[in-house]
């Protein structure tokens, strides 16, 4: 077999793979450079940009806001998706394919169009520029991502367990909360963590919805890049990378990452 070509292909592919984390690595390196910019050869190291970020109330506030919004969004959207997917699973309505297509439909909207659409509706409801408005918008955007893993997990549950429970006298509430919920926990955890990270890092749609009262961390990073690209941004950005990394590691430990590349059995 043509082994040298294969080896060359493998090396080139690996180089391309390392291209993916490149900007993140560069930002991480910049955040520790005392000079505030990255150069070759590297200069002195320091934590001054982290200190500066941690002592600026604007960054603390945006960080806390983003974490709070992501937490509320992930819990709500997971609950909504579980309730809906469970009902669909048990009832098997005839219009299920149409309904699932509708649930997935935000994925087919370019973000700029989705942003305008959500501004329209949130402005009418008086939620523009509020945390509630951002939470509502994020729920709309993350529902497709929460829905799919939960549906997959529900389909994996052995029907005979439910039947047995039912024969032994379990009522519907017990079947839903005592049997389906714990057995579908891999889907629930995936939905929870996935929607958390999407909400935490979302910027394109959110930047339509922030206002003087409330802003999220990614939107504030965007605003600061436009004003003055201070090296504090590198420290803040690295902090968001750490949050993302922690969530991905949690997902890997708890569930595994196969979900991302697994084909829908449905």
């Amino acid at each position, binding site marked *: 077999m043509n082994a040298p070509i294969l080896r060359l292909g493998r090396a080139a592919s690996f180089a391309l793979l390392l291209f993916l984390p*490149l*900007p993140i690595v560069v930002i991480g390196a910049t955040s520790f450079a005392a000079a505030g910019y990255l150069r070759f050869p590297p200069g002195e190291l320091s934590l001054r940009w982290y200190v500066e970020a941690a002592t600026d109330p604007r960054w603390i506030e945006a960080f806390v806001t983003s974490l709070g919004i992501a937490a509320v969004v992930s819990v709500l959207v997971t609950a909504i998706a579980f309730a809906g997917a469970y009902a669909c699973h048990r009832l098997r309505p005839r219009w299920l394919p149409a309904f699932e297509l509708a649930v997935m439909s935000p994925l087919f909207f370019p*973000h700029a*169009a989705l942003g305008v659409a959500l501004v329209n509706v949130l402005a009418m409801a008086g939620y523009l520029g509020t945390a509630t408005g951002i939470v509502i918008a994020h729920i709309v955007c993350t529902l497709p991502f929460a829905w799919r893993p939960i549906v997959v997990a529900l389909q994996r549950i052995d029907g005979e367990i439910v*039947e047995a429970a039912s024969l032994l006298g379990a009522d519907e509430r017990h079947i839903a909360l005592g049997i389906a919920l714990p057995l579908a926990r891999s889907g629930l955890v995936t939905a929870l963590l996935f929607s958390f990270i999407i909400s935490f890092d979302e910027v394109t749609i959110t930047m339509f919805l922030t206002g003087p009262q409330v802003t999220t961390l990614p939107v504030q990073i965007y605003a600061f890049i436009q004003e003055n690209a201070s090296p504090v941004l590198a420290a803040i950005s690295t902090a968001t990378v750490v949050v993302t990394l922690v*969530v991905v590691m949690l997902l890997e430990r708890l569930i*595994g990452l196969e979900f991302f590349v697994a084909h829908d059995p449905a």
Partner: protein
Amino acid sequence: MRGATSAPRSLGWLLLPALLVLALFLGSVALLLFHAFWNKDGFSLIYFRQILDRADYHDVFLRTVSIAAIVAVAAAVLAYPIAWLLWRLPRWRNLLLVIVLVPWLVSLVVRTYGWLVILGPKGFLNETLKWAGVIQSPLPLIFNDLGVVIGLTHVLMPFSVIATLSVLLQIDNRLEEASESLGAGGFETWRRVVLPLSLPGVFTGLGITFLTSMGAIVTPILLGGIRQKMAGTQIYQEVVYNFNMSKASAWAICLLLLSGLGLALLRVVEAALVPKADR
């Protein structure tokens, strides 16, 4: 857990929250249509006419579609070897998957900022090249279409990797073994067996990256500069600076139509290229 005991219809109430979210989304789309066709003077096509009439607006849409197409193809081509690598190294797949997933999930504003730091006039690349004596004055790598293409391609590549890999993982190992036992080399097997079977994943990736590039705002503004407009940046400007919801909505509808057209075209190409049995 299908077909347990007959489920009571009252379970339908559990659908209510999801239906509310859906209603909100559909309502927002309805409002989008309303704003695009109605302003304070009643029914009007003024902003659609404006898009059809103004040459500078044609340029914006043309740039949007071309950049989205270039980015989609570049991301697919660059992502394919990565997906192939992950597919061929099952023992390392989890670790390598983290290298793909973390950049994908990190906020795109952060990744775009990274490219600003690397490609800027005083960025890492230009400074390093100057230090090495390769160039005298910085290369114009950003604040132009090149910067937007580099940034968007990088931002969207993980989508293509994931879409391609998930199809590669479906391929039956025995097909490869059969091909090689019939005398085909590694490359030949890839070209005649693996590549055709993985094309559906490549096309899924093309669709996602094209759609996402069409609606991009942050990367085009930060890496393209204010003068290199794309449809998304124009829409953002109309909403946030001009408060012109009617114009923004009309633009959003044109963007939706063009995206839909692009995806439909992609389906036609896919139907022509991919044998039926694989779809």
